């Protein structure tokens, strides 16, 4: 295998603590930022779950039964029925375990604000991040410059509405979960793509608050760069990369 097969660092400890069969199974790939989202949600809620690592590029039959399009993450419930899509899984976790901490505010208008910015992170920030990863600074400097500026613009738009320490202020919510995985991955574009945290007002502080949130710290690994080499060389075969390269939003 060309990437480290299992979670490392703090995440390895969390995986070990969740290796027994439970009503809920999170089918995940340890390095995948989308899988990271429901993992954070499960840790926030402190509910029992089994973490099962799968290599999505192998399209293993047992996994395809759970996720027909072969996408991670997937969550299976007690009778084996699956829930797909990272945000829909998080909303399921919220609905199934409404006790504190809640991932949504109580007020209907504030809830619509959360939905609006989760949507914006998904449709704006995330594709921009992937396009920047794939834009080669040496061979395509214009594309790289454009991708970098678009990422700054998108992240700035979200951060302009961040109250601190988390998006809504004191309350950690689904917006933080939606963007959280990238707070522990942006070092990749810092190191290889010229991204600078301080160029986006509020991002450094927000990213640090996210990275030190226990549900995120305990699910973060050490070897993300190794996996991301294919993106960085613009060779990635993953659907997310192919979607980002053709300019489509990630479905």
């Amino acid at each position: 295998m060309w990437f480290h097969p299992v979670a490392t660092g703090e995440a390895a400890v969390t995986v070990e603590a969740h290796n027994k069969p439970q009503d809920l199974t999170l089918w995940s790939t340890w390095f995948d930022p989308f899988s990271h989202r429901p993992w954070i949600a499960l840790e926030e809620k402190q509910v029992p779950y089994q973490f099962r690592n799968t290599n999505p590029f192998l399209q293993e039959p047992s996994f395809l039964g759970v996720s027909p399009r072969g996408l991670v993450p997937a969550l299976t419930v007690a009778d084996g029925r699956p829930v797909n899509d990272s945000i829909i899984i998080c909303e399921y976790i919220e609905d199934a375990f409404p006790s504190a901490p809640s991932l949504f505010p109580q007020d209907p208008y504030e809830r619509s604000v959360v939905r609006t910015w989760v949507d914006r992170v998904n449709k704006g920030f995330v594709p921009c991040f992937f396009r920047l990863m794939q834009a080669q600074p040496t061979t395509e400097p214009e594309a790289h410059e454009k991708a970098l500026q678009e990422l700054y613009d998108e992240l700035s738009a979200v951060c302009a509405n961040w109250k601190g320490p988390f998006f809504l202020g004191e309350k950690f919510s689904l917006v933080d979960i939606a963007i959280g995985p990238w707070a522990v991955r942006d070092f990749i574009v810092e190191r290889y793509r010229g991204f600078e945290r301080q160029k986006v007002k509020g991002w450094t502080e927000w990213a640090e608050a996210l990275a030190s949130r226990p549900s995120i710290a305990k699910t973060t690994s050490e070897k993300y760069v190794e996996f991301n080499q294919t993106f960085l060389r613009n060779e990635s075969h993953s659907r997310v990369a192919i979607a980002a390269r053709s300019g489509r939003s990630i479905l």
Partner: protein
Amino acid sequence: MATTGPKYHPVATGAATETVQQHQEPEDLTLWAGWFCPFTQRAWIALEEKSIPYKYIEVNPYLKDPGFLAISPKGLVPTLTLPDGRPVNDSLIICEYLEDAHPSSSPLLPKDPYERAQARTWIKHINEAVVPAFFRLLQAQPSEQDKQAKALAELNEALRTVCQKVKGPYFFGEEFGLVDVAIAPWAVRDFIVQEYRGFRRDDVPGWGSWAEALESRGSVARTTSEKERYVEFNQTFLKNEGHSMVGKAARSGRAIE
């Protein structure tokens, strides 16, 4: 008066006329609407289903009125405003807002968490597969037979997938809900691709009966205008001159944002 964008009839017609007239008084909620817009119709159906008081204000989004852009930065309809003017944008976010704000009036989402997740899954499919395919078919010109055939096949496939899950008469069976709301405006408009683009309801198992149930639902019928007026509005798509963001997005293959 100078206009930009497509020429179309400026107000709702047919059954929708009376609904508009009944909602001209100030209320807590204001629906900023385009009578022609399928996304507006989603929010409008939800308001009607839940019998929530609202004021209806007709907007021509192509005029890009600065006052409207202040509450809808992308210039899109629908927008819902609260009494203090705070806006909610995006048709499905508006529907979820109405559901959160009025949970006991005709609930549009199931109580069971797993079923709610299924509802959201199929709403996402409708938004990301069915709706863009519909617009691509609408815009594929008769002179582009290959493109039209491909778009038609994609629409049929996208519809077929969701129709397989319909319990009937509505998505979850007897209870009308948000999955129905999400697709109903296209049940109202598929006559256009039937007449002009070779779409046939019979080509998609389950679509005919679901679409008929949707069209005849009170909240849908009351927010539907005259067929000819929809054709008139859609001339811009039919001639592939689309001025709308939805048309541009569909043409470039992006999901509609």
